[in-house]
C-alpha cells in the first residue's frame, strides 16, 4: 500500500514538474530528507527515486524560462569550489574506491542545494520549501514524540535506516534544526488549525529530541533556546510557554534520561567521549601527515587507516569539523568553514536590513529561523558526523536567496514610499498653477 502510494505521488509530481520545475525541487527535498522510500516494505525501497526526480527536475528546469543562475554568486561559488576540492581530494583518498561511493551521494546533496537557490525566486516558493523541510523532519518528530510519550521515554528514538538520520544522534540534531522552522511557520500561518497543528508538532518534536538520548542534541537544543530567548522581544511570554512545555516533558522522562544528560559533565571518564577524542586526534594526525589532502569521504571509518595511528580501534569522526578535516584535509576544512560563514553573514545582512520594518517581518523571521537552525547544526555538529547533511547546503543557498528577496522588497518599499510624495506634490501644485 505504501509502495503504491509513494509511486503514485512521485509519478503525479513528475507530471507537474514538466510544467513547473519547482514542484520537482519540492519533491526532491522530501525524498532526500524524509527518505519516504525507507518507510515502505516492497518494490519502492529499491527504486532510485531521488535520481529520477533530480533528472526530470534538472531537465525541465533547463528547457524552461526559469532563472539559470543563482542570485548570490559568492555562496554558490564557495559551495562549488568545496565540491571541486572534494572531487580532487577523492583521487588522493586513503581508499578511493570506497570514497567515490560517498562522493556520489555528496554531489547530489550539493546539487540539490544549488538548484534550490536558483529556483527559489519568490516568497511563495521559499515558504513552500520551508514547509516541505518541516514536513520531512516533522514526520519523524511527531512519530518519535508519540513513541516517547507512549513508552515513557524508556526507549530510544531512531531515524530511518540506511539514511543520514538513521543514528539517534543525527536524528536528534536534525530535529533540533527543524524546531525554528516549525515556530516560524506557526507564527506566520493564518489558519487557526494549521497553527494548532504546528504547535502540537513542535511539542512532540521536543519530546522526540528528549527520546533520542543524544547529548549533542541536548546541547544544540540549549543553544537554540538561549539564542531564541535572547533575540525575542516577548521574553516573559516565551519563558512562561517554555516552562509549560518543558517541565511536563522533563517530568515524564525516566531516570535513565537524567543519567544520560548528566554524563555530559563526566566527559573525562566517559568512554564514548574518550573515543571521540581519539577520532578527533586521528583526523588531525591524518590531515597533517597528508596535507593538503584528507582520507576522502568516510575514509575515517576504515580500519586500515586507524591501524596506522591507534591499532585495533576504530570510531566514526563524531564532529563535522574533524570529519571534514580528516576526510577533506586542511583546505577542505577551510572551504567548509567559508561556506558556513557565507551563510551566516547573508542571514545577518537580512537581519540588519529588515530590522524594525514591520512590512518586512516575514523576511526578518525567516532569516531568524534559518540562523537558529544553522546555529543548532554548528553547535550540535561539533559532536556529530553529518558534515554533508542536505540542510546545510540548502540553508546556505537559501540565505543568499533570502537576502535577494529582502532587497527586492526593500527596493519596492522605497519606491512605494517615494511615489506617494510625488503624487502629493503634483496634486498640491497643479491647482496652485491653475489659480
Amino acid at each position: 500500500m505504501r509502495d503504491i502510494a509513494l509511486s503514485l505521488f512521485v509519478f503525479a509530481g513528475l507530471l507537474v514538474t514538466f510544467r513547473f520545475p519547482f514542484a520537482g525541487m519540492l519533491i526532491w527535498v522530501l525524498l532526500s530528507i524524509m527518505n519516504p522510500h525507507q518507510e515502505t516494505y516492497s518494490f519502492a525501497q529499491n527504486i532510485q527515486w531521488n535520481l529520477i526526480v533530480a533528472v526530470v527536475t534538472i531537465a525541465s528546469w533547463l528547457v524552461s524560462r526559469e532563472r539559470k543562475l543563482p542570485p548570490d554568486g559568492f555562496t554558490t561559488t564557495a559551495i562549488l569550489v568545496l565540491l571541486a576540492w572534494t572531487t580532487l581530494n577523492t583521487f588522493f583518498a586513503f581508499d578511493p574506491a570506497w570514497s567515490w561511493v560517498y562522493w556520489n551521494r555528496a554531489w547530489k546533496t550539493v546539487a540539490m542545494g544549488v538548484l534550490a537557490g536558483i529556483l527559489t525566486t519568490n516568497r511563495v516558493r521559499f515558504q513552500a520549501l520551508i514547509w516541505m523541510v518541516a514536513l520531512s523532519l516533522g514526520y519523524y518528530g511527531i512519530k518519535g514524540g508519540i513513541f516517547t510519550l507512549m513508552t515513557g521515554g524508556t526507549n530510544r528514538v531512531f531515524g530511518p535506516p540506511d539514511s543520514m538520520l538513521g543514528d539517534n544522534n543525527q536524528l536528534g540534531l536534525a530535529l533540533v534544526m527543524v524546531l525554528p522552522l516549525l515556530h516560524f511557520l506557526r507564527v506566520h500561518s493564518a489558519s487557526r488549525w494549521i497553527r494548532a497543528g504546528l504547535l502540537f508538532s513542535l511539542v512532540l518534536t521536543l519530546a522526540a529530541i528528549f527520546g533520542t538520548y543524544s547529548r549533542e542534541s541536548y546541547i544544540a537544543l540549549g543553544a537554540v533556546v538561549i539564542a531564541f530567548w535572547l533575540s525575542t522581544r516577548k521574553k516573559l511570554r516565551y519563558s512562561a510557554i517554555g516552562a509549560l512545555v518543558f517541565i511536563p516533558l522533563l517530568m515524564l522522562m525516566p531516570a535513565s534520561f537524567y543519567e544520560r544528560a548528566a554524563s555530559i559533565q563526566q566527559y573525562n571518564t566517559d568512554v564514548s567521549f574518550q573515543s571521540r577524542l581519539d577520532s578527533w586526534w586521528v583526523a588531525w594526525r591524518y590531515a597533517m601527515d597528508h596535507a593538503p589532502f584528507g582520507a576522502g569521504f568516510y575514509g575515517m571509518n576504515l580500519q586500515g587507516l586507524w591501524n596506522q595511528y591507534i591499532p585495533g580501534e576504530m570510531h566514526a569522526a563524531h564532529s563535522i569539523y574533524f570529519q571534514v578535516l580528516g576526510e577533506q584535509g586542511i583546505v577542505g576544512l577551510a572551504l567548509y568553514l567559508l561556506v558556513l560563514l557565507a551563510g551566516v553573514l547573508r542571514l545577518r545582512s537580512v537581519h540588519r536590513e529588515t530590522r524594525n520594518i514591520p512590512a518586512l517581518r516575514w523576511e526578518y523571521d525567516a532569516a531568524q529561523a534559518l540562523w537558529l537552525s544553522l546555529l543548532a547544526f554548528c553547535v550540535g555538529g561539533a559532536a556529530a558526523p553529518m558534515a554533508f547533511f542536505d540542510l546545510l547546503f540548502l540553508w546556505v543557498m537559501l540565505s543568499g536567496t533570502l537576502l535577494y528577496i529582502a532587497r527586492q522588497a526593500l527596493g519596492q518599499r522605497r519606491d512605494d514610499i517615494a511615489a506617494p510624495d510625488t503624487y502629493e506634490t503634483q496634486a498640491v501644485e497643479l491647482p496652485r498653477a491653475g489659480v
Partner: protein
Amino acid sequence: MNGLFFLASLVWAGVIVLWCLRNDRGDAAGAKGILRLNEPSGPKK
C-alpha cells in the same frame, strides 16, 4: 496507524506542491489557500 500517518504525510506534501503551484509568482502575503500567511509582508501591491 503508522501507515495512515505515512499516507497523510504524502497528502500534505501534495498540498504544499499544489499551494505553491497555485500561488507562484505572487507575494506570500497575497497567497491564498490553506497555507496562506496571517500578516502583510513585503511591498504593497
